[in-house]
């Protein structure tokens, strides 16, 4: 598997660390309440098809969102968080 680091270009999977769905980018307000925080922390879909998830390119320190398809394994693209 290969992913494209927005900074470094296409790289082998071994250079990346997986985190989870991009939901982690949408941090609720501290007082948003239990349900919002549970959804943020724990509740995830298990999509058969397109998904967007977070990866860390360890060598350069860039966090990225990867758009990929869980059925075809196609990686559509990636972009840096910032």
């Amino acid at each position, binding site marked *: 598997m290969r992913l494209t680091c927005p*900074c*470094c*270009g296409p*790289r*082998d999977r*071994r*250079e990346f660390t997986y985190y989870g769905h991009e939901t982690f980018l949408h941090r609720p307000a501290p007082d948003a309440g239990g349900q919002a925080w549970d959804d943020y922390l724990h509740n995830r879909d298990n999509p058969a098809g397109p998904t967007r998830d977070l990866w860390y390119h*360890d*060598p*350069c*320190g*860039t966090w990225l969102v990867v758009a990929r398809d869980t059925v075809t394994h196609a990686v559509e693209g990636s972009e840096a968080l910032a």
Partner: protein
Amino acid sequence: MADLTVTEATDGLGLPLAMGDCILSAQAPGTAWLIAPYPGRRAACSAALAPLGLSFPAPGQGLAGQGLAAGGRRIVWAGRDQAFLFGAAPPEGLAEHAALTDQSDGWAGLRLQGPDAEAVLARLVPLDLRIGAFPEDHVARSLLGHMPLLIQRTGPETFALMTYRSMAGSAVQEIGHALKAVAARRRLG
């Protein structure tokens, strides 16, 4: 006056190591400052670096100082919003635009040279190092086996490698294994 003796990262590791048509030698990074521009300050950093004949490098780029004043100074991209300045202290005014950290002692520097250097590195580095894809002066952060790596092609058959100081022994050992295997193939003709 420093009253403490200096131990280099690669001391006692049996370098240089020559095998086949390659040679692995120590190449201490010397003075190395990590420069990390604050958001939106890359141009300001380049301006501050101008007196050294340098500018802040783009990802994957290594720049040698221009002109006589350069005196062997180099700046090398080193990660997201980071570059290593080698051979000089950060110029006046740079600290306003970037975080500066002295890293001179944190890294072990190695130099691998020879016609089979690419073949040796292909055993350890998951990067496309063909000269077309990774030409002279190009830089990458990657892995050397399981070790962090900053790699720069410094010549058609020469690479500068940097890994964590504490891992210098393992790095030399791993490259040594690869050198040995590649040399054995070379002997087959």
